[in-house]
């Protein structure tokens, strides 16, 4: 344990004991009364918590400790195993007890800690003989720097690859500072072709520079959040909070910083369109006309984890950086059946691709169609940005009304009206994304009617709040505003309910070509 003193997640036992009660429901999955300050609920009881970076580190520590109460292996090995299982404790436990333990350690790229004992003994004997050797001036050559050094200055992992301490430090520093550990949250042995992972305790022991240590901790925390399905960083720049849910779903969550986003995809809350289509849409919008062809040809999604993959070279044998899935760029199928030469893939039909490209007429009308939806989408987005100005002018109006004998509570309807306006604009914005991919059928016609109604009522409300409000008598305003925003709310609800019902009853058809 001494060697782990330096390890950042090993030094706060007492602090941990104190908030044990707090954490229990998290670990046990017992849903608490939504009275806890940390706990937020949405209309459809979707429980989640907002955690600070410190709480995230604590949460990671707790996960490791929880596994270690059952599995007696070093904490630092546990982190590697958990990382391997994407922090799914149950899956790790299942594999640990039901499966082949040797295979488990092998796949997670660690040497079984149970092999350590004989190995360590061997090492001691070797170390003793090395010590003897050192006394007779015998030296070992480090295969990185080619310096002949006393064996006592050499170190390595259980795989037996030894390099001098200085080279190790340099190697780890380079990996941490320059390469960011390639998103995976682990560093492998410095030897060529050795995939045994360096444990955190060893990293912390060999790296001395506090800046590098800190960066390493950030990388570990980040990989913990990134690969945990139940956690997501708040997408706001520099926010640093993490939302933790009890089950993965596409639901709106509200961060402590005020930002509301979709837990599943991290975008602004985008009801009624689903994450997958929104992602496609955003990608389409990001491609400006010049690069769009190139991007379509050069980026695809990993068929397994769906992270975007960019192709800069020729080989069609792709290995996803994130999930390490091997696949074929051309057909997106698994790589294995392709054998050793990539050009054997026969699922790509050049003629067909060409036919599609040649039909220029078709693409021109497709462009028109896209521009139609894009303009409306952009327009609502733009208006939504302007509504912050409206909040300011409405605040003035509210102050004015309070001077005319209305109470603070009584004038809140104005702020509420702007809130509703913003909600409606956001919904409308995403209805155009939904509609863009929608194939025409009876239900889509109803949807478009609902969309039109919501759009009209939203524009009325907007116009009234922006311009007409000043010309009315104060007494009339409240009634008019309330009528208008309530109508908007009801139109919005009708539209969303209809789309949701369509999802449930599978009434929506999508265009593949869009």
């Amino acid at each position, binding site marked *: 344990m001494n060697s782990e003193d330096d390890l950042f997640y090993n030094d706060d036992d007492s602090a941990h004991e104190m908030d044990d009660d707090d954490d229990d429901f998290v670990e046990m999955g017992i849903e608490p009364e939504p009275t806890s300050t940390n706990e937020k609920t949405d209309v459809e009881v979707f429980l989640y918590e907002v955690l600070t970076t410190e709480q995230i580190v604590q949460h990671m520590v707790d996960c490791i400790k929880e596994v270690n109460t059952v599995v007696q292996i070093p904490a630092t090995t546990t982190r590697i195993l958990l990382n391997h299982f994407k922090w799914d404790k149950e899956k790790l436990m299942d594999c640990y007890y039901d499966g082949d333990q040797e295979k488990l350690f092998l796949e997670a790229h660690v040497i079984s800690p149970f092999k350590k004992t004989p190995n360590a003994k061997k090492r001691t004997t070797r170390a003793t003989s090395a010590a003897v050797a050192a006394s007779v001036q015998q030296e070992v050559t480090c295969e*990185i*720097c080619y310096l002949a050094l006393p064996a006592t200055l050499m170190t390595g992992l259980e795989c037996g690859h030894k390099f001098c301490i200085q080279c190790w430090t340099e190697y780890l520093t380079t990996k941490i500072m320059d390469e960011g550990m390639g998103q995976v949250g682990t560093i492998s042995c410095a030897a060529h*072709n050795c995939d045994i992972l360096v444990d955190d305790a060893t990293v912390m022991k060999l790296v001395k520079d506090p800046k590098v240590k800190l960066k390493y901790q950030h990388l570990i925390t980040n990989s913990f959040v990134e690969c945990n399905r139940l956690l997501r960083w708040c997408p706001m720049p520099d926010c640093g909070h993490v939302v933790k849910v009890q089950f993965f779903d596409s639901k709106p969550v509200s961060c402590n910083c005020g930002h509301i986003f979709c837990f599943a995809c991290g975008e602004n809350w985008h009801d009624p369109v689903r994450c997958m289509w929104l992602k496609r849409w955003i990608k389409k919008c990001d491609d400006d006309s010049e690069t769009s062809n190139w991007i379509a040809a050069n980026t695809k999604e990993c068929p397994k984890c769906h992270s975007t993959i960019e*192709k800069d070279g020729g080989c069609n044998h792709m290995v996803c950086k994130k999930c390490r899935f091997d696949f074929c760029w051309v057909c997106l199928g698994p790589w294995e059946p392709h054998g050793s030469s990539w050009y054997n893939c026969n699922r790509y039909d050049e003629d067909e691709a060409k036919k599609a490209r040649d039909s220029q007429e078709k693409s021109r009308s497709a462009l028109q169609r896209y521009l139609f939806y894009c303009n409306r989408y952009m327009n609502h987005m733009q208006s939504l940005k302007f509504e912050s100005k409206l909040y300011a002018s409405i605040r003035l109006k509210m102050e004015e009304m309070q001077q005319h004998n209305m109470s603070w509570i009584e004038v809140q309807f104005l702020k509420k009206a702007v809130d509703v306006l913003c909600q409606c604009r956001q919904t409308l914005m995403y209805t155009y994304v939904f509609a863009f991919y929608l194939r025409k059928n009876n239900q889509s016609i109803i949807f478009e009617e609902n969309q039109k109604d919501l759009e009209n009522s939203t524009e009325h409300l907007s116009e009234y709040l922006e311009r007409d409000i000043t010309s009315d008598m104060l007494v009339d305003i409240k009634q008019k505003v309330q009528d208008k925003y309530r109508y908007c709310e009801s139109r919005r609800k009708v539209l969303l309910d209809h789309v949701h019902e369509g999802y449930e009853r599978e009434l929506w058809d999508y265009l593949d070509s869009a």
Partner: protein
Amino acid sequence: MALLKDPPSGVEIDMNKISSNLSEWIVDVTGAAGTNYEGETFQLQFKFGPRYPFDSPQVLFIGSNIPVHPHVYSNGHICLSILTDDWSPALSVQSVCLSIVSMLSSCKEKKRPPDNAFYVKTCSKNPKKTRWWYHGKF
């Protein structure tokens, strides 16, 4: 260093072209007998940065004869994972050369990568700046 004293067959260092500060080497490699590249010689340029060997060297084919190979672009850039993602500081110049020779030897059909034209037009001068998402297996 071992490379200077005892170079493996088909690999030879051009002593005249080693830059004075040793940061740039030219290595001549010869296609192995019985392969598609038998009898051909190629020049490999190694550039070592200040953080070498922890940072991989920049390695590319130079000169008039760039091997025609599905993992070698016509500008000399090589798609080989040990030169970027799978680099290990324990790899020597010799082992890099050997990997490249064996990459050439295992080639069944002499042709350029399919996206050669596009890549050569748009890539950075330094192959290390390319984000190689794929690993050729040989």
